């Protein structure tokens, strides 16, 4: 083997090895690389948050501290909009859109731009979490590593899932939650092909973060002891948490919509939002930043507050997060959910103690934990992610039973009230949430240009009925398009059914010409039309075939029968 290899020939060498490798082994190796990348993204963001927070500590006690979130959010928005030209959205919906519709293609800039903007927003006090930035970074790393290896859509999507899984695993030190989040929320499906790569990426991502940050449970606490009564009361938490999740989702969506109309330059809007949060933070410090310290305090039963304060803090956090994210701050909703979930749980426990002081209720920490699980499951409408995340970040498997209960109840309750979770809202409204093997996805994958049947015999306007007879004899279809002989433009359609009764009537043979009996009202379809639109058109007009016309030229017919045949083939091929 030559000692010196130039870059291009090294790439060719690699590609040759890849070509001969088993696909599954290849995916495992690439997944490991992606795992490292996702883990590093999480570590970098963590370090950035720590660093900026540390640098600003001195200013936190001054009177102008409320301006810090404003500056941070404005800088973040400016950075994202003008320097990176990202066209920012929240981040996670973009990843899902790419997975559903674009075979997992993500821009390279997304792998680091959100880390910086997220750090700016959160470390200065903005009420958001580091997960969304880290998810889109990890996903983009996965997508771009897949690009280097020229993977196909299916494999690239798996790598995006790996990136997201490793990122979440790393930032929470929670590998199972990372895997389940990737599958439940991002990819939307478990398949044999993506199980192992995602597992590997999660494990490696977690390892990377443990290497740098050490292995410790974020919200550790002493063991909880819960009686049956506590578990019974947990149902109440599920309901309350469900309601607060719905409140949060609606407030968030509303803020996003309304604030855009109110203030125009993005950075100004973000600055004002930051200022509001800063002012809130002056009164209730727990609303600032990602809030993990608040959660730790609550879990360790050291949060000194009664019912009223806890409830107020819960609502304040919901408000602050909606403002931060709604006005364009860069950050995720996981951490805030954990915060107001725990605060809400604490408030609930205080309430229980207030109402029934004689019963030995479990400590606040227990209900806080349930609150977190319920809010996570409800807001994301992803109960499994909620359960496993809480188990892993609190290390308390012993209370998994009530955890399961509240997660399930909350997720279901939220689903009834808000059928679509925050991540999916925009996608669903545009019809872009296209999971594999769903009707929408199959119809989106099929396109008209692949289904056009071009074996129709074309006739002129002035073709008489007599001249149609040999045409009918020779053709194998029931439709005859009529074209203008001078321009070649499509004019209308003749159906065999319409002329059949008259073909054998000799009296009419010279008296009827195609131009006068053709159907001009037949709706035309273009080769770039939506398949769903075409099928709807067929249903509305009760037709089984429609002409495909581009720029006035007839290309062929598209028929429901062919659509069914291809639909089924498409479904088969997308199934494992």
């Amino acid at each position: 083997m030559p000692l010196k290899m130039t870059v291009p020939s090294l790439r060719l060498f690699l590609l040759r090895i890849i070509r001969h490798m088993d696909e599954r082994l290849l995916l495992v190796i690439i997944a490991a690389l992606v795992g490292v990348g996702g883990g590093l993204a999480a570590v970098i963001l963590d370090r950035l948050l720590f660093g900026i927070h540390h640098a600003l500590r001195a200013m936190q006690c001054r009177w102008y501290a409320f301006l810090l979130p404003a500056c941070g959010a404005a800088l973040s928005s400016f950075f994202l909009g003008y320097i990176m030209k990202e066209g920012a959205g929240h981040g996670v919906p973009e990843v899902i859109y790419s997975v559903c519709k674009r075979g997992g293609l993500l821009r390279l800039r997304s792998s680091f731009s959100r880390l910086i903007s997220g750090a700016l927003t959160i470390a200065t006090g903005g009420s958001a979490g580091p997960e969304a930035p880290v998810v889109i970074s990890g996903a983009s790393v996965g997508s771009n590593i897949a690009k280097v290896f020229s993977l196909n859509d299916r494999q690239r999507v798996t790598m995006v899932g790996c990136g997201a899984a490793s990122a979440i695993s790393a930032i929470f030190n929670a590998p199972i939650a990372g895997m389940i989040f990737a599958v439940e929320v991002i990819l939307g499906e478990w398949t044999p092909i993506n199980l192992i790569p995602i597992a590997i990426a999660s494990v490696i991502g977690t390892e990377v973060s443990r290497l740098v940050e050490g292995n410790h449970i974020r919200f550790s606490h002493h063991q909880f002891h819960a009686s049956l009564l506590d578990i019974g009361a947990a149902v109440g938490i599920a309901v309350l948490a469900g309601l607060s999740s719905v409140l949060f989702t609606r407030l968030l969506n509303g803020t996003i919509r309304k604030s855009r109309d109110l203030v125009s330059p993005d950075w100004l809007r973000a600055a004002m939002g930051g200022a509001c949060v800063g002012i809130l933070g002056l009164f209730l410090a727990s609303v600032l930043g990602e809030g993990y310290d608040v959660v730790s305090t609550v879990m360790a039963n050291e949060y000194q507050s009664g019912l009223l304060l806890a409830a107020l803090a819960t609502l304040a956090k919901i408000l602050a997060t909606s403002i931060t994210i709604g006005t364009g701050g860069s950050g995720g909703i996981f951490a805030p959910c954990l915060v107001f979930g725990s605060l809400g749980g604490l408030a609930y426990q205080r309430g229980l103690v207030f109402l029934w002081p004689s019963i030995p209720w479990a400590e606040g920490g227990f209900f806080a934990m349930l609150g977190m699980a319920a809010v996570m499951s409800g807001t994301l409408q992803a109960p499994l992610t909620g359960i496993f995340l809480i188990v892993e970040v609190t290390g308390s498997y012993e209370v998994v039973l009530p955890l399961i209960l509240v997660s399930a109840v909350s997720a279901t309750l939220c689903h009834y009230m808000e059928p679509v979770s925050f991540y999916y809202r925009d996608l669903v409204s545009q019809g872009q949430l296209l999971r594999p093997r769903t009707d929408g996805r199959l119809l989106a994958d099929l396109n008209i240009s692949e289904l056009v049947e071009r074996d129709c015999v074309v006739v002129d306007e002035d073709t008489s009925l007599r001249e149609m007879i040999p045409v009918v004899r020779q053709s194998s279809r029931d439709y005859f398009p009529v074209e203008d002989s001078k321009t070649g433009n499509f004019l209308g359609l003749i159906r065999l059914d319409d002329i059949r009764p008259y073909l054998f009537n000799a009296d009419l043979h010279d008296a009827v010409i195609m131009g006068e009996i053709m159907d001009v009202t037949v709706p035309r379809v273009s080769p770039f039309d939506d398949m769903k639109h075409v099928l709807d058109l067929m249903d509305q007009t009760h037709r089984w075939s429609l002409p495909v016309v581009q720029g006035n030229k007839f290309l062929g017919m598209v028929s429901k029968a062919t659509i069914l045949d291809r639909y089924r083939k498409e479904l088969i091929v997308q199934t494992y």
Partner: protein
Amino acid sequence: MHYTIDEVSRLLHLPVSTVQRWIRQGNIPVYKHEGRYVFLKKGLRRWARSHGIVFTPESQEAAAKNPAGDDSLVSAMRIGGVLHGIRGNDASEVLKSVVEAAPIDPSIDRDALFVRLLEREELSTTGIGHGVAIPHPRSPLQDGPQEPSITTCFVETSVDYDAIDAVPVFVLFLMLSPSPKIHLRLLAKLSHLLRENTFVDFLKRKPLADDLLSKVDEMAAAMDSSAPSSRPNDAS
């Protein structure tokens, strides 16, 4: 060993663009060989089987599309031959003589053939008028002929055939075809010829094999050149 994209799209009855899209999406197992996409035959068959996709390998498909057999009238008549002096007092006897004398492939059971011919006559007479009959088996024979044949049989004395126009039949064309499709094509050509009075008169003279075949050849060629044409859709 390998299939190319074009071959695969033909086998799956799909346009090339669909197969290309499946390659891009990772839905079909494919390899790159010398810069082109190729499919390993074994791998593809395994994939098709596991997904329940039907595809017919080339040989079967070709056979299904082009059933063996030339549909030229002259060659069918040449294979079938020309017989003179067939005897019989009625349709059934004449048919029996025809079946015995005709140069039929030995693999075909003559008795079964005779029965089938009678079955067909029972359904409706094959005496199509002007003294001509076109007996043929009711349905394609099992172990039927590989190639179509038309045996021209001139009867010694015209028989009452219960024909459409009640004219006694003087010539029979025994038609054996490998498939109904070919039978129809040959029948169409033959009846077109029989519409010409000159041809019927020619037949009444009970011509010998060579004369008959060259006459048919001549008239068939004239027929082909005057066939109508129309514009297929050629936007591509």
